[in-house]
């Protein structure tokens, strides 16, 4: 049996405004698989991805999952992207419990995947939750002197998770958010957010936490800056910092403004630029040597991939973690054995300088979050937000607001 192929089903947004996440996560996973396969596979098993596009739509994600399990008969589900999509799939996993279908390392920090009832061992999380991300972020904001926090979030589970995280974190400081606004899922960069910006700015925030996708957050930043907001804007890891930066850079070239200063990106993985980390080195190396091609059947929309990205790095880590699990599974792969193998992965070294607990069920592999800013054309980690300045001074002088 050794030397066979294990296929993992990945349903993600490969089209629509959120496609950047899917693309990058897929690239990271593929790079890891290639890296592993090039070295004879994981325990002799070649790893392979089966892809389906859900365009960040929960119903499609559910259909894809059913297809993966019942038609494609994939070994496990891997690398789903998005909270609402994964949230919808969750009951289905319960349904497939008898078949021991596992959902591995979804790209979401939703609570519900981490607050599963006892015995529910269908999901394996790698990344930190949104609650942790927002808590760390709010802590940093408060520590940096920002006490008027507003939340701009997606009007769905993801957005609500982020909003809830911020609310709870602020609650610890007996603070409440000064204003909030929502937007509908699926917004593109072209969408007009001036109404939302006005709502947010009505609370006179000095820091805004955005819980959204890259195009929506980028568009919000664009309109907020246009409305004269000079405060801090922060995003969560799901906002795909690399693509967001790319969108804003593109717009900055057109309008001649700097949109990236004053932006803080919360990340669940350290910066891939950090050469001290073996994982970052491995990722960069893998991306160098990988011959990644875009999944042709899944790219109706044009997309220029990032060479390296946080999401990609996360994907790479997920792929490597999976390889480790497969290797531990032994020569006779089965879903149950994979679960058992994962159960043994209490403290796995993924090359991040700390062990990860990858056991299925409640909890997650990584708990640390990282704050990064974009400066000099690259992302760099920051410890404190005190020095982060937002907006262009000239723009602040203009002051659209009275």
């Amino acid at each position: 049996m050794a030397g066979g192929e294990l296929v993992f089903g990945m349903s993600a947004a490969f089209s629509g405004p959120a496609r950047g996440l899917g693309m990058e996560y897929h690239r990271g996973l593929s790079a890891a698989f290639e890296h592993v396969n090039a070295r004879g596979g994981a325990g002799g098993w070649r790893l392979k991805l089966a892809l389906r596009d859900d365009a960040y739509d929960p119903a499609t994600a559910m259909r894809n999952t059913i297809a993966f399990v019942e038609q494609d008969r994939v070994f496990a589900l891997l690398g789903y992207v998005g909270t609402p999509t994964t949230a919808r799939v969750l009951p289905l996993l319960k349904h497939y419990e008898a078949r021991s279908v596992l959902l591995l390392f979804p790209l979401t920090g939703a609570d519900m995947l981490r607050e599963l009832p006892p015995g529910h061992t269908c999901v394996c999380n790698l990344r930190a939750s949104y609650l942790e991300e927002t808590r760390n972020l709010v802590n940093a904001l408060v520590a940096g002197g920002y006490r008027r926090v507003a939340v701009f979030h997606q009007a769905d589970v993801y957005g609500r998770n982020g909003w809830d995280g911020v609310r709870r974190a602020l609650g610890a400081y007996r603070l409440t958010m000064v204003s909030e606004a929502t937007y509908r899922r699926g917004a593109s960069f072209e969408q007009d957010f001036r109404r939302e910006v006005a709502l947010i700015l009505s609370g006179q925030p000095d820091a805004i936490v955005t819980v959204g996708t890259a195009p929506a957050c980028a568009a919000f930043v664009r309109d907020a800056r246009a409305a004269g907001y000079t405060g801090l804007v922060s995003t969560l890891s799901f906002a795909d910092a690399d693509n967001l930066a790319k969108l804003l850079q593109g717009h900055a070239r057109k309008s001649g403004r700097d949109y990236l200063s004053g932006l803080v990106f919360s990340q669940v993985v350290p910066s891939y630029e950090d050469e001290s980390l073996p994982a970052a080195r491995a990722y960069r190396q893998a991306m160098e040597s990988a011959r990644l091609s875009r999944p042709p059947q899944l790219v109706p929309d044009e997309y220029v991939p990032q060479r390296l990205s946080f999401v990609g790095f996360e994907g790479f880590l997920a792929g490597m973690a999976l390889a480790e699990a497969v290797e531990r599974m032994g020569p006779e792969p089965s879903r149950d054995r994979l679960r058992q193998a994962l159960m043994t992965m209490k403290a796995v070294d993924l090359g991040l300088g700390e062990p990860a607990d990858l056991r299925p069920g409640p909890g997650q592999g990584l708990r640390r979050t990282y704050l990064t800013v974009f400066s000099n054309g690259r992302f760099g980690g920051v410890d404190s937000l005190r020095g982060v300045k937002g907006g262009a001074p000239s723009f602040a002088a203009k002051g659209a607001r009275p």
Partner: protein
Amino acid sequence: MRGRLLIRLLLFMVAAFGLMATATSFLSSRELKLALESEYKARARAIARSIADGNTELLLGESAGNIQAAIDQHQEMGELSYIVVANARGEVLAHTFAPAVPEAVRQIISAARGRDAASLAPEIRTLTLDSGAEVIHVAQPVLGGRGGFVHLGMDTAPIRKATQSAILRQHLLSLAVFLACLAVAYLYIRGITGRLASLAEYARQVAAHDFSTTCEVRSNDEIGALADSMRSMAGQIAGHVTQLERTVEAATAELKDALDSISAIVGNIADGLLVVQEGRILRHNPALLRMFGLPVQEVGASDEDGLAGRECAEVFGPLVCEAASARMVEHAAGGRPEGAAQLVEVQARRADGQLFPVEITVARVALAGRAASVCILRDITATKQLEHEREESRALLERMVAERTRELSRANTQLKIEVAERKVVGDALRRAEAKFRGIFENAVEGIFQISPEGRYLSANPAMAVIFGHDSPEELVAALSQMSPYVDPGRRQVFLEAMEEHGQVQGFESQARRKSGRVIWISENARKVVDATGKTLHYEGFVEDITLRKEAESRLVHQAFHDPLTGLPNRLLFLDHLRMAMDRARRRPDFHFAVLYMDLDRFKIINDSLGHDIGDKLLRHVSGTLVSCGRSTDTVARFGGDEFAILLEDLTAPRDAIRFSRRVLDEISRPLDLDGREVTTSGSLGIVLHTAGYDRPEALLRDADTAMYHAKAQGKGRFKVFNKRMHHQAQELMEMEIELRRAVGQGSLSLVFQPIVDIQERRLSGFETLVRWKRANGRAIPPSDFIPLAEETGIIYPLDHWVFGQACCAVRRFGQALEEAGPGTGDHSGRPFVTNVNISAKHFRNPLLVGHLEQAMRACQVSPASLSLEITESVLLDNVQSAREIAAKLRELGLGLCIDDFGTGYSSLSYIQRFSVDAIKIDRAFVAGLSLEAQDPGSEAIVRSLVTLGAGLGLKVVAEGVETLEQLACLREMGCPYAQGYLFAQPLPEAEAVELIAQGAHRAWPDFP
């Protein structure tokens, strides 16, 4: 008035309906809205409750993300416009608004917090959002508000939409019903008001005494009853009025009539009227005035203006007046009854003073209570005068009557004489008429009279019979409707001829009998004119010449057709061919072909199976040919088994070829004739290039030639005539002409081939051979020209000539023999014999024997010194006659030798049957005897023939002996005679005589 009523009613209806429709739509929309609202509210409540109850634990957990996931799913169902979840403190935990919770909702949420905590019932209200949308808002407490609230909003737009569309539908329906009712009401009301209006109109007319029309309104309702009573009332009134008017009118008219008549009588009586009262004129009339010469008053003027009131005596003279009055008195005294008239006659005086007698009738009457006398005066001057004149004229009349009576009696006598004469003449005419009538009636020819316009005036019974009618009347009636001629223009031709020549003779036409059968008639007619030369009519005879015409056409057909097959004969074919050639000359694109066919072996079939079968075969073949050809083609039989076909209007030569193939195929099929299977075939000659010919005969000849070529190549073939054949034919023809000439002119010559008795080694005779040297100097071998001569019939004069010449030669040979002394032949009893070739053809000619006899007699030669050489084929053809002729020849003493024996089909029995006395062994067998070509077969044949000859006592001659070996062989076999180049070539007569003179008949010089 009628319109106003109608419009008023309709307007009322419109108003009522509009009111009703508005009311009902308002009511129903309200009901619908209420019903829908309550339904929506119930549904909203149910959803709110299901969210609240279904997610109680989630809500208590206050995990906003999980709550959001739950409400997202509910909202995706699509019925709710929003869901908000708030905790017990009124803080919003999750909502589905973007970008923010509207103020109105926020207020409700904060209001819900303050509500009575024990309230478990959901609160439902309707509120309007910032966007203007109206929603049903349900605030559903969770765990009586301890677990917070679920708020949800349901858009009422669907309710509004449903209500509006329901109202619209209802309005449309109402409108439709209303329009329908309106139409019905219009019709109904119009029915009532219309009838009322017509009743009113009717009443107006009755009031105006117009009874001409009646009211047409009739129905069972009140209006109908009203109309009925109006009608009867009007009828009664009309009756009364008209009766009254009529009575008055009648009375008036009566009075007026009486007055008018009295006036007229008074005014117009011829006698004068005078009414006198107490001496004064009371009344008079114009006649009275005229009588007395007084001026007549204008008509119509009243009496008072005239003489009325004047003294009577003053006007009319005292005499008259007295007569009137006096008598009155007298009468009055006499007490005579009043009114009784009295007549007096007095002399009256006119105004001009002239006296005239007048008769007065006086009557007394009471007028207006006073006595008056009414006098009628009559001028009797004329009466007196007339009396006088009558006396005179009566005397005159009596004289005249006497004279007249005398004259009349004279005339009467004269007339009686004339009547007697006329009776005599009339009898004579009647007799003549009866005579001619009899001729007319009983004539065999039809006799008729027609008007110059062509209308039949009369016809006799014979004519009726000709036209198949029962009586002449019927015929004339029929002919007046339809011309008897088949050709409608024929009558016109007849009439024109008639007008031009005054008669027609033998005017033949096709006419139609009553039965429709077409007959031929011949008409002779002449014009009948009156004394002034005006045409009265035409009369003439009709003869039914149908039988004659049919006979004629039959004759014509027979003249141009073959009686056996009914096909055209040569004459007709040539005619058609000539026409085709003419057409081809006129039209370059017109192509035709001529085919000539004869049947192979027809003669054998005819001879062996009988003429009956032969005829049937010919009919079959002709049928085949006709069926293969098209209707435009001409298939002719030229007699015997020869047919000619003219294919006209060909598109390509291959049409003719295809036709030929088909014909030959069809003919060669085995045929069952009277139970015998007969197989035949035909040979066809075709001329395709018909352009260069002038004469049809030449064309036919070339077709024939091509046919012969076909036949020569075998049976059942066809051959297209070509140039080469043409040349050959020409050559043959030239040869034929030359040969025919040669027979008379002497370019033919005889040579003699010696026949040698090889046992005795001496000359035993000659075979006479004919040589022909043509004008071009070429010598033609007999094998070339003899068949030609046979074919063309030249063989008869040729053979006669040859035989005559041979006889003369034999005579000279005889003289030479005598001079040379007797040969050994005399001892052996074998005479010196000269053979002459005779064509087989002669053996069909019974005159042959006489002819030969005559020739021999002419040269005074003995038949015994001559022998006729014939070929075997003679014996085969026409066995019976050949045998008879052969017998006669033998009786005559002529020898009979079969030439080329063994090559034909003759059986030995023929030799006996034809009493042949010699046979000649064919040179082919003899040639087989030579050493080089030692042929055991030939040798055996020759030997057996020699033995046969010896056995039957025949002379056996070997022909074509050319070598010593052959001679030796023959001698060894015992063959008695031989001829050939070994001995001598054919010799001219002089050399032959010389040979005899040398004594060759005793011993052949230099016998090899």
